[in-house]
């Protein structure tokens, strides 16, 4: 079959995509650095051990534990007691390889986090406005008519079906993922990040209250990160397995071979 190349991604889309790759990596790493300073998540406004959902800690020398909804698991080496990036191990919730900077430094982690939060948000707004004006956003948003095609598409991925259901540039599952990430998860992460800041809470008390208070906002913020991480893993798996070179080229040059 003869290959045909189509110009699939505009320059702003490609640039935004790679800016987000960097911003996402920095925000996750620096976020884990910030988390490490107080490695608990409570479903409450003020800190409350009685409403603790997640606690990563080190009950004794050389032992790391993770407690989720009251169930404790030994996670030495992975969580709770981990390597510190300087050749030894210690009571750090997330290991040095997962945090920015690698060594324990809350002040620096905050600087990275608060700078790249601006980068990610401003980049997203620029892309969203531009794409909406061009009318291309429509192709990415899940519509009621797509709902009945979700399972047939999943069946196709699972090789239970020979052909995918008819769709536009993006298939119904892609649309569901993009819509969920752009209009639910990303806004949730931004709003909960703002909500856990005392200066924002003072300006908009209801924002923090809506999420259940400061500690609860911190919990949602962390959960949102996990959801985005899950999207990232599925996304990179699909890119890696469905024509890796073609996918990478299209997000660099814009041209995609069909």
């Amino acid at each position, binding site marked *: 079959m003869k290959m045909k190349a189509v110009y699939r991604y505009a320059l702003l889309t490609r640039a935004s995509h790679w800016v987000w790759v960097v911003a996402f*990596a*920095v925000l996750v*790493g620096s976020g884990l650095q*910030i*988390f490490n*300073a*107080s490695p*608990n998540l409570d479903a409450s*406004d*003020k*800190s409350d051990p009685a409403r603790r959902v997640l606690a990563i800690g080190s009950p004794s020398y050389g032992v790391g534990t993770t407690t989720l909804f009251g169930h404790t698991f030994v996670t030495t080496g992975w969580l709770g007691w981990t390597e510190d*990036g300087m050749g030894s191990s210690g009571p750090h919730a997330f290991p*040095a*390889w*997962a*945090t*920015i*900077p*690698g*060594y324990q*430094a*809350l*002040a*620096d982690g*905050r*600087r*990275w986090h*608060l*700078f790249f*939060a*601006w980068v990610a948000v401003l980049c997203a707004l620029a892309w969203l406005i531009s794409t909406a004006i061009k009318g291309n956003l429509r192709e990415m948003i899940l519509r009621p008519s797509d709902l009945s095609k979700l399972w047939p598409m999943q069946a196709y991925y699972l090789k239970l079906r020979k052909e995918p259901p008819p769709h536009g540039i993006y298939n119904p599952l892609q649309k569901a993922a993009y819509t969920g990430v752009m209009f639910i998860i990303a806004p949730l992460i931004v709003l909960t990040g*703002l909500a*856990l*800041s*005392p*200066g*924002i*809470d*003072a*300006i*908009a*008390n209801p924002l*923090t*209250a809506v999420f259940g*208070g*400061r*500690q609860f906002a*911190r919990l949602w913020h962390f959960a949102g990160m996990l959801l985005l991480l899950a999207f990232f893993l599925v996304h*990179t798996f699909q890119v*890696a*397995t469905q024509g*890796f070179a073609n996918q990478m080229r299209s997000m660099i040059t814009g041209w995609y071979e069909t």
Partner: protein
Amino acid sequence: MKRKLFVASAISAALTGCGPISSALNSSGAVRRTLASAEGLDHLVIGTRGLAREYREHDVDRHFRVNGFATPSDARYMDLVAGNFVAYRLVVDGAVDQRRAFSLAQLHAMPQTTQITRHDCVEGWSAIGKWSGVRLGELLDAVGPRDGARYVVFHCMDNDGYGHLYYESLDLHQARHPQALLALRLNDAALDPDHGAPVRLRVPTQLGYKSAKWIARIELVGSFANIGAGNGGYWEDDGYEWYAGI
């Protein structure tokens, strides 16, 4: 299959490389200055507006978490504690019309306000306390800031164990915020030594490190460039943001 293996190993190699790479970038002066530019933007956009949420008695942490440096244990502070802080004077000086030294009794004689507010630590935890004392704005009115006074610097009695005394600062706008409080009482009792007796600051619209404990002297200045390492506070000198609203 080989390609998939390559992708997987590239990803894991990138991950293990992250720590050293970010640590190296983190020590570059240009990188640090770029990252720090976000603080000015945050200060501009968020600033000091609105009021921190006030809670009910029911929400108060009866045993408010003790944090910060160790309670001072030098002879001067121990004498103050032994004498029930009768000898304590809160010195307010610098760019003021009238230098004053307030006794605890004089501070108690000023109009008192109470707030039940949440203390948000930069580390991530929060606690709620009931604080009573004198509005900082009230104290500023009593001394009269002179033209040229831009910042209110709080010199404290606690130190980091290496001889560096704690200090903090607010600009005049932040200092005149109605909830910026010189707290004399916590949870209906006189402030105890571990919580910053006899006088501590409460700034509920910013992170906890702004709420300096064990205040000895308040100095009004035009610039804090010559105080400490010049960044406006002990933790600021260690890389934390001076604007701590986020």
